[in-house]
Structure formats: C-alpha cells, structure tokens
C-alpha cells in the first residue's frame, strides 16, 4: 500500500514570533524553521505502518519555497521513501494546498493520505477535510489510533466527549492528533541515506492550480496582555462573579 504524507515547513515550535510593525503578519526572517509537529506525527505513523508491513511506500510532499526541501529531507530521514516538492513562493491557503494535493493523489494513487490535523502557524485545521471533500474520500480526523486491515482503516478519534471510533473504506484521509504517537529521532545512518532518496520538484501549475490568495489579512496583532486576576473568598462569590461579571453562567 502506498501512503502520501504532506509535510509543512513552519516556524520552530520553540520560538516566539513578533508581529511586523505594519501589522501585515509575523516576522519570520532569521528564525529557525522546522517540520510542523502534527506533520511529524503523520510521518511517524506512516513509518510505523511500513515497519508493520502494512505500507510499502511512503511519499512525502511539501508545498512551499525551495527550503521546504529541508522539511522533506527530514521526513526522508525518518523513513519516507521519496519526496515531491511543489515550489510555491508566498502564502498558500488551505484550499490551494488541498487542490494541489488532489492533483498529486490522482497522479500517485495512494490508498491512504495521512496529514497533520493543523499547522502551528495559521492553525487553520482545514486541509485534510477539504482534500477529502475534493476527492470524495472518507475522512478520519484527529486520529488517536489507527488500524489498517485489508480494505479498511479504523480510526479512533479525539472528540470533545472522549474517543470515537470510525471505520473507513480505503482509500481514505486521516489527520493526526497530538497523542497518536511520539515521533522518533532520525538516526544518523538514515539521515545519510536520505540524501540519496529522490525528490521531484513540481510547480502548482503542473496540477492546474492557481495559488493566488482568496483571503485577505486585514490586521495581525499581539494577543492582549493578560490582566491580573482577583481572589475570591467564597464559592458563592465566585458563582456570583461568573454569573454577573463574566456572564458565563
């Protein structure tokens, strides 16, 4: 079985960003970039499926600038077999990403696409769902556990009330949640081998997709500074404040 794993290059999750002075976005210059943590979980899951003998080939895809190749190399070092870089400069919105991925799915015919549930830069949480809709495939989002058996994938999902288990017919889309697995550290021999694994370079036009933004960013601002809290003496006072001041009860 072939698995497609899209991986996104984002700001390293350890770092803090500053809003640009013109409020058009955040300033990423000179900051370390890394693979989106949810995408790392997706790669790890694909590699585990390969180690179990369920999956035979893992294709890592990234859509972004030239440097997104580094992100693909990280996936290759973790255990993916080959990469596809769709070179796009500037912002790419989830719908454009989903359309490009649809084109790649049609060319590659994977049985399973495993994506991170969201990227930590824009937190859109849309690409997997949009891709499922465009392809007309079933989707198992926020995966906590994945079992693949012949023509079905069983996905245990994290939902508000707890866990929900769904069985999907393949081919299918799965998006990963935080607790699905703990991604491995790439081993030195695998990093060395990864440099010899092929990466195809494509353009959005190869899939007939126009990546021009459809959304307009009006303003980006820092979140408001936290105000000091108040101490309440009794539960009754707390309930009163929640009811009358905060208006949440």
């Amino acid at each position, binding site marked *: 079985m072939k698995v497609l794993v899209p991986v996104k290059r984002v700001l390293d999750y350890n770092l803090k960003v500053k809003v640009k002075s013109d409020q058009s976005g955040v300033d990423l210059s000179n900051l370390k970039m890394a693979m989106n943590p949810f995408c790392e979980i997706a790669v790890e899951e694909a590699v585990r499926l390969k180690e179990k003998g369920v999956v035979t080939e893992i294709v890592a895809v990234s859509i972004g600038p030239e440097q997104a190749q580094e992100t693909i190399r990280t996936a290759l070092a973790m255990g993916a077999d080959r990469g596809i870089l769709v070179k796009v400069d500037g912002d790419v919105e989830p719908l454009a990403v989903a359309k490009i991925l649809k084109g790649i799915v049609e060319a590659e015919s994977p049985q399973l696409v495993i994506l991170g549930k969201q990227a930590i830069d824009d937190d859109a949480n849309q690409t997997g769902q949009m891709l499922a809709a465009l392809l007309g495939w079933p989707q198992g989002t926020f995966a906590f556990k994945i079992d693949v058996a012949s023509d079905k994938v069983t996905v245990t999902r994290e939902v508000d009330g707890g866990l929900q288990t769904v069985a999907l017919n393949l081919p299918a889309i799965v998006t990963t949640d935080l607790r699905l697995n703990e991604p491995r550290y790439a081993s*030195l021999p*695998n990093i060395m081998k990864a440099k010899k694994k092929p990466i195809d370079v494509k353009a959005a036009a190869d899939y007939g997709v126009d990546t021009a933004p459809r959304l307009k960013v009006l303003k980006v601002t820092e979140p408001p500074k936290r105000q000091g809290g108040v101490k309440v003496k009794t539960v009754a006072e707390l309930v009163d404040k929640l009811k009358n001041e905060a208006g949440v009860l």
Partner: protein
Amino acid sequence: MPTYKAPVREFMFLYRNVLHVDRHSNLPAFAEAPLDLVEQILGEGAKFCENVLQPLNAVGDHEGCKRSPDGSVTTPTGFKDAYRQLVDGGWPALGADPVYGGQGLPHVVSLAWNEMVSSANMAFGMYPGLSHGAYEAIHHHGSDAQKDMYLPKLVTGEWTGTMNLTEPHCGTDLGLLRTKAVPQGDGSYKISGQKIFISAGEHDLAENIIHLVIARIEGAPAGTKGISLFIVPKFLVNADGSLGARNGVVCGKIEEKMGIHGNATCVMQYEDAVGHLIGEPNKGLAVMFVMMNEARLGVGLQGVAQAEGAYQAALAFAKDRRQGRSLTGPKEPDQPADSILVHPDVRRMLMDIKSVTEGGRAFLFWTALYGDLLHKSPDPAVREKAGDYMALMTPVLKGFLTDRGYANATNCQQIYGGHGYIEEWGMSQFVRDARIAQIYEGANGIQALDLVGRKLAANGGRAVFTFFNEIDAFIADNADDAQMKPFIDALTSSKAQLQDGTMWLMQNGMSNFDNAGAASHDYLHLFGLTALTYMWALMVKASFDGKKGKPDPFFDAKIAVGRHYIDRVLPDAAAHLAKLKTGAGTVMALPADAF
C-alpha cells in the same frame, strides 16, 4: 533547572562563513558531507542532546554510579536507556572509518556533535568519548586482525573503551609505572597491576569494555622507554567475534569525585588478565602521544561546552529575575523591578563569557579543520602546516579554554546570586563538572610546559612563525578596510605582544629552564588571548561580508561581541606578558625551607 538549546546556528556560521568548509569538498569525508546535510545531521543530533541527554544531567549528578560487591557498576537512572538510544541512532559512528562501519564525516563536524553532547551531559558524553579514544588507538596502531576484531563494535557503540595510564604513584611521570606484562609464548601477555582514575572503567551500558592498558613487559628497560600498550577486553573475544570468558580485570572501587558523578571513575585491578600488544614492544608511549592531540582538543572543547551550557542558564535567569532598577531609570516601569539584565555588571559577565565562548569555539573548529587536512589533504605543504598547527595549538586549546571555561562557569553561577550556590538550581554542577577539564588529560601546568618546552621550539619554531605570518597576511589584506580597523589594530598589537613574549622565552628560557617553567602559564594564556583575537577578526570580517551593508541581527551581534572581546577581554594579555617577563625571579626566590 537549566535547559539547553544546541547552538547549531553558531556551528553553521563557522562552517559556512568563517572556515568556508565547502572549499574542501574535493577531499574524501568532506565530499560525503555537504553543508546542508551537516546542518540536518546537527539539527537531528541537537534534538537528541536537548531532549534525551540534558534531562539526565542533573539525575547523573545526584545519583552517581554505584558499585556492587562483585565489582559490577550501575550507572544513574536513565543512562542505560539513553545509551541504547545513542547506539540505535548510530551516533557513535559519526567520525569513524567507513571500512569499520563508520560514517566517515570530518573531525570538524564530529566536534560540533561532541560539543552538544558535552553541554547537555558531560558525564554521559565521556562513555562514547573514551570509546572513540580506544577506537583511535587501535585504528592507528593495531594489527589488521585486531582492527577487525575490535573496531566494528567500538564504532557502533555496542562495546565501549577506556584508557588506563595512571597508577597510584604515577600520573604525569609514566616512567614510574609498575603494571607488568608477562609473555605467554602464544603472542599474548598476562597483565597484572592497579590502575586508578579510569573513566568509564566499569558500567552497565554495553556488553563488553575494551581496556587499553599501558604496562611494562618483564625485563623491559626502566623509565618511559620500557612502556608498551595492550588491549585487555573485559570479556575475551572469540575468533568468531562472540564473547568468551570473563578476563582478570575488575573494578575495585569507584572514586568519589567533585563532579562528573554520572561517569564511573574506577580503580581497576588487573590480575593475570589476558592482554594483546598494540604496535611494537616498548613503544607504547609513542602510540599514546599520537592520540593525545585529539583527546586534549576534546577536553578543551569541554571547557567551551560547560561555559555554553552554564551561559544559557545564566542568560535565561538574568532575563527572568527582577531585582532593583536600572541605574539610568526604570526600563520596565509597569513591573515591580527591572530584570537584572539591565545591570552593567551582569552584562559584563555575560559578554565576557559569550565573547570567550564564541571565540574559543572558533579556535577549536579552526584547529580541528587542520586536523582533518593533516590526514586528508593531498598537498604535503598543507599537511605540514596542519601538523604544525595541531601540535602547537593543542596545549593552548586545552589549557586556555578549560581555565576560561571554569572561570566562565563560576561567573554564570555568580549571576544567580545566592541561588547559584543552591544545588537545586543546577549551577553548581556546571562549576564542579568544568573543574575536571583543567586537571585531566594532562593538568594545565603540564600543557603550559608542553607548549614552551616541546611545541614552541619544534622544527626551529616553524609552527609559531607560520602562525605569525598568517596573521601578518590577514592584517595586510584588510589594512584598507575601514570598518575592520579596530579589529586590525587590536590584532596588530596583540600579535606584537605574543611575538615579544615568544622572543623573551627564546632568549631567556634556554639559559635558565626555570624561566621557561615560570613563564609558561602566562605564555599559554597570552597565546590563547591572541589566537582568539585572530578568531574574532575572522568572524567579524565574515559578519561584515555576510550582512552586506544591511542590518542583520545575527551578524550585528557578532560584530558587537567581537568588539567587547578586544576592548574588555584582550587587555588581560598585557598583564600576562608583563608577568611572564619576570621569569623565575620572584617565583623561585624563596628557599624551599622558607615555605
């Protein structure tokens, strides 16, 4: 508790902008490691060091290693699992020969990995570090059969190694050693004696330990001319590579130490242990000395690594800790106090540490690159210069960077105020761990003697004059660069001071060896300070080239820190010059019985 972020950006700055490592991509090893791959390797290695090794640093310090009555040793909680992950990750193979399963990457790349390991957890890092030392000795001097038998598993890390030199009555003066080797007629020897201070001598991390032991073959000449080197495995190795009988070597005691508690420093008892000679009889010391340069460079690296780890913690504390107000008025009026980062005296310490750590790292990497060229360059002239520099710079790197590393670790502790003295904050560990680097692998006084007594005069002073000429050429090349002027001026006067000190030694050290001995410490520091001036000049030039006239936070900071170095650290050189020129004078003035 301190945390650690590996300075991968700093490593890549040195490789890309300062040393231009890609110039050597025509050479083996370098061809296998284009810089974008090196960056990825170090990035992945950094995660391992930050997330697996660093959290065990304090654990190792608190728990230490424990010896059972049968002589077996248990390492601190988590070390065994981390070591397995290290081996599974293939990291011990980084710089090793591909013939024996290594990845064959250049030494200058291994150095960055070693720094990260050492900053994250120095005591842990010594287990694979010692293995690499044993690997080097066997690789350089072992027979083909010995290489085939021992190297593959030392390279993977399945087995570890040790170095057994010191005995209770002999450390620096190895000519006094008593451990004896009795020939058995089948080519093997029976080794008996006691070795002390053996790092990683016994532990539970690996299935076998390959001890390298110096001993005197029965009937061999007295003194250093009768010393031979032997391989003594903990478990004998069968011809098919499987493990055989337990050999006659056991850990008699674990030393209780000031620091590096996570590393088992053992007293080793050898009783009729089977050993195999490496190289020729009575030439053991020569074999050891070949490895000494790289090992000592590795210890100099520990000085930088401990200062870096401590600096990261001290900087985080200085930003977080609020006490008092800035002398020039409140900087954060909405807070009850400013962070202590506003205080010039805190800044002084941070900048001193930062400038010496970054300059020291550059000096190490610059020298290590020559170490690579020594083995890999096809050009005999390059190899000669590389060999000269490795020999000359090694004692300076070891002595200067570990003295400064320790001083910097204590200044990091100072920034914490009272909390620095409380174990819970983890700063005392940096100080205690950094302390050993000044002592082992040849105490720093020995390094200074090695520099003035052996290295300086070798080949008529060829190495030091080559260094002077290189600096002169750099000064001439950059004399017209207005933005470099402060750095060129500092380099010019700094080099003149070192030249002055060198001439003084040549004129006064030969006629009275006590003059050389008394001047050696200050000469070593004068040399280190001058070398760092040159490194800062190289880094600042690379930064001007890199920023291309535009503001750039990384390069602008480099230029500012370089300026701090020449204004606030380099002036120490004048004091060292003045002191060294007094020679044996007051140092030897008192008759022994007047003490």
